């Protein structure tokens, strides 16, 4: 395998970015990430992005954003209709093919123009489930009830996760929900979607992020302490909720195994758990020990969940901490689909 590292990252997340179009708010992030790496678009061996037409409410929405990269002269480029973390995966694979040593990756989404909970209903089986218009948060509540009533987790444990996210988010300028709350205060909240409380739900955000990847010596030139991708893998579970064990995440465990996210020493983990229940399952699936590993030092997806960028932001957050020396080995995670159906795990290390 060719050693590839995350060498630059820029992000923006806000509850609603209403005054700017996607390309308008992405251009400064793209420029910022490239400048941090000291590169221009012409230096990029490959470019890949992730976004969703259903989120934007228009077909071919990514065509409006590509101009932000400055694709004149033309660029070697691709796009996935998935979280930007999968765009990063595609770029990482492209670098593994040889011949290039840099890549530019971005992901973005605006949930605020529509109702994310309704939009996500169209991800469900179009013949059997979507016609019922399931509220996507209620779908997670089904899983939560299985977990709670099966004795897998307690409401207090979920409240601890929510409280930790809020506390960590206090130092993250990009967090949308960063007001601290104690476990007792969270447990005192009325249910939003029984058995989930408001603090169990993601803080929906608009925004995006941009990442620069570089290989080998190029990465060392561009970054004082590159965050090396030591392994990356993604796996899917079945879609049909009825055939899955919703009290665990088999695909997250499998992706972690294949990415090599095992071993004793993981200093920090950035997990894309939009719900406290999903974060709980991820900690379990990745075998993380909270005494040794700082979980979601950014506050995670609970504190700001920017659909189509949330997973890529986890990779950027984890890499940033390695650059700063906050840790030597990190795990970053992205997810897609209802109840953690699809999971991507990336292991990052400093030299």
């Amino acid at each position: 395998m060719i050693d590839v590292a995350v060498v630059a990252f820029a992000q923006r997340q806000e509850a609603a970015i209403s005054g700017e179009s996607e390309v308008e708010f992405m251009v400064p992030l793209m420029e910022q990430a490239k400048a941090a790496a000291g590169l221009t678009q012409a230096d990029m061996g490959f470019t890949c992005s992730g976004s969703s037409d259903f989120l934007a409410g228009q077909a071919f929405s990514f065509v409006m954003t590509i101009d932000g990269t400055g694709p004149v002269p033309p660029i070697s480029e691709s796009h996935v209709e998935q979280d930007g973390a999968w765009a990063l995966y595609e770029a990482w694979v492209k670098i593994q093919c040889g011949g290039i040593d840099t890549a530019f990756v971005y992901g973005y989404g605006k949930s605020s123009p529509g109702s994310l909970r309704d939009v996500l209903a169209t991800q469900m089986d179009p013949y059997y489930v979507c016609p019922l218009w399931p509220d996507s948060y209620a779908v997670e509540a089904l899983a939560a009830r299985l977990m709670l009533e099966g004795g897998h987790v307690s409401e207090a444990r979920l409240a601890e996760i929510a409280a930790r996210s809020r506390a960590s988010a206090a130092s993250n300028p990009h967090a949308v929900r960063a007001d601290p709350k104690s476990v007792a205060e969270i447990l005192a909240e009325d249910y939003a979607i029984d058995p989930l409380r408001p603090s169990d739900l993601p803080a929906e955000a608009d925004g995006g992020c941009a990442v620069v990847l570089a290989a080998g010596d190029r990465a060392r030139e561009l970054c004082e302490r590159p965050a090396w991708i030591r392994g990356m893998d993604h796996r899917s579970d079945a879609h049909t909720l009825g055939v899955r064990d919703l009290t665990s995440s088999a695909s997250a465990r499998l992706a972690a195994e294949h990415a090599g996210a095992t071993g004793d020493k993981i200093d920090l983990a950035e997990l894309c758990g939009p719900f406290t229940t999903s974060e709980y399952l991820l900690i379990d699936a990745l075998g993380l020990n909270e005494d040794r590993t700082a979980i979601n030092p950014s506050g995670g997806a609970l504190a700001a969940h920017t659909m189509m960028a949330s997973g890529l932001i986890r990779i950027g957050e984890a890499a940033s901490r390695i650059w700063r020396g906050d840790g030597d080995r990190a795990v970053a995670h992205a997810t897609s689909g209802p109840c953690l159906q699809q999971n991507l795990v990336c292991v990052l290390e400093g030299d």
Partner: protein
Amino acid sequence: MSGVPAAPRDPLAAPAALAEPMTVPEALSGAEPVESVCTPIRLSYTYTPGRALSRYLRAMADKRILGERCGATGQVFVPPRGVSPLAGSATSEVVELADTGYVESFNITRVPIERRPDLKPPYCSAWIVLDGASVGFLGLVINIAPEEVRIGMRVRAVWKPDEELETSAANILGWAPTGEPDEVITDYARIGRVEASDA
């Protein structure tokens, strides 16, 4: 297998794995198969135009056309998107453009289109390169038979009556010939202007 001529396959035969007919319970035998279900999808979005398009639409209400200039190359884009694809950076300057230009190329639509019942075919849609702009933008050519429209033909905007103006690109009803001599086109492959001319 190599060397042995394979029996010719019927390319349309069902793959072996799908060839077995599905068995259904006795109770369902003879039931009419459901071939389709109709699932209406209604999602509502509140669009916001963004900074550049907002300015552009507001100016439209005053019968003004705004473009935006790329700081690096000087090219002027209209309608503005707030970004220069040439530089990969925000546009640096708002530019007011003339409401005159030329037809860069055109299409004569001879079929009705669903969302514009007011447009009676045949009608001519064209890329109009405004004086002062680097790229063409889309408009209807009116007050002339579609067959008489020419690449290079000079046109001027025909605006809605003042009392009907809105913050909308629909304020321009179309583009009518000015009668000036045609713009001389020498390179049919390339569109627009590399350098923006003075409005």
